[in-house]
């Protein structure tokens, strides 16, 4: 997946949209910052989240971080392969390392998310 086609949250989640289904993952920038990722907790299927609510946890040697829901909706599907293949987070952050699919209840929230180029600027300002 070309990151140019994705939308990004300030909290480093990416979203790709297909109809009313949002696929959510974690940006390459965040994965690089975390390094040494050892654990990922997926959300439960059927659970509902609003933007900014924690839907999962990602644990690196250094610290644990929340994975936040970028949009409102219900978890349709999760990437069961990912917790046992955490290397995918760095090898294929925008494709094979997707975390969850959410049936959006309010797709207008996508407008609150950033384009890839805005997200990169956000990282430059925030990350250094």
């Amino acid at each position, binding site marked *: 997946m070309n990151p140019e086609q994705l939308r990004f949250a300030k*909290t*480093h*989640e990416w979203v790709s949209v297909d109809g009313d289904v949002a696929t959510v993952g*974690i940006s390459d920038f*965040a994965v690089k*910052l*975390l*390094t*040494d990722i*050892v*654990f990922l*907790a997926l959300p439960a299927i059927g659970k509902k989240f609003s933007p900014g609510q924690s839907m999962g*946890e*990602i*644990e690196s*040697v*250094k*610290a*644990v*971080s*929340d*994975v*936040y829901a970028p949009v409102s909706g219900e978890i349709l599907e999760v990437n069961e392969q990912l917790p046992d293949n955490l290397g995918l987070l760095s090898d294929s952050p925008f494709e094979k390392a997707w975390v969850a699919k959410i049936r959006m209840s309010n797709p207008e929230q996508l407008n609150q998310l950033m384009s890839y180029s805005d997200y990169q600027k956000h*990282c430059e300002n*925030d*990350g*250094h």
Partner: protein
Amino acid sequence: MKDVTQLTTGPLVRKTPLNLWHHTHNGRMVDFAGWDMPVQYSSIVDEHSAIRNAVGLFDISHMGRLQFRGDLSAEFLNGILTNDTSKFRVGDVRYSLVCGKDGGILDDVLVYRLPDRWELVVNASNREKLIDWFSNSAGFAAIEFTDATLHTGMIAVQGPRALELLGRVASLPLEEMQYYTTADVTLLDSPALVSRTGYTGEDGFEIIVSAHETERIWQKIMEEGSPLGVIAAGLGCRDTLRLEAAMPLYGHELNETIDPLTAGLGFAVKFNKPEYTGKAALEQIRSAGLRMARVGLLLGGRRIAREDSPVLVEGEPVGKVSSGTFSPTLQKVIAMAYIPHQFAAEGTKVEINIRGAMVSAEVTGLPFYKRKS
């Protein structure tokens, strides 16, 4: 996700003589005890493995370096330290605690006895507190005290190839230097205080040199070490390495509410020596019997138990985790914790509450990792 962008430094942090080197070599910098320090350059796990298998360099210039001169230095220090300075020979390095009157730990330190002086290497976070403590202790006026921290630098060379590496840069009889000894030497044409010490569980050396020579010496060791696989290592792997070796860290295993006997550091507390601060309290703690113990825990799963995670036995909270991490050597999650003595036997099953998730764990012997030989 949050936290990932918070690894920036405030405006008033101190810089070691290697600060520019870290910034120009991809060091990911954090504020550590008021110092701008590298937490990692590449990956914590890769740096950890390099130290376990080859050799690496740490900038530990943030550690406090305090010097004591004058005939009464040994006596002065013996009134403050839990270890017995009267037993130290010239060239010895010994671990000791500095305790308050109630036996609580003010700091854990390395004590160097040299021909013309004593030196203490202390935690960065406690340096100013200790200087205050010393200057208010009996006998301070009779000794000559110098805080050498800001005009010196300190480099740790750690790993199974540390001896080979330093042998390439210095014509010193390093192989004859016993573990936990020290000497004033000339290293790359500069006066240096070298000790065979470290905080990683590996063989290694720590080198104190003047601040303006620190970067030159660091660079030279890096160059000479390149065929041996030397790397620069940050504070991130320093923590995972010391945790595998079960070495306590001030602010985690140690603080002013914990006494050294409970912390399992009785080897550095001497009772057959003259009066020192905290001695009476420690004698009382010893005769009353210890309630809590510092133990090692091996966890199931991959969630890391961080500091303050509750430890439970049969559903009841009995203690707390002091440090936890993923052990790159064991490929398991490990932790140290304080729990009551009756649960401290190896093999005891406990649970840890990690942010609401109950994770099973087992008490295990310390250290988690011990080097061969």
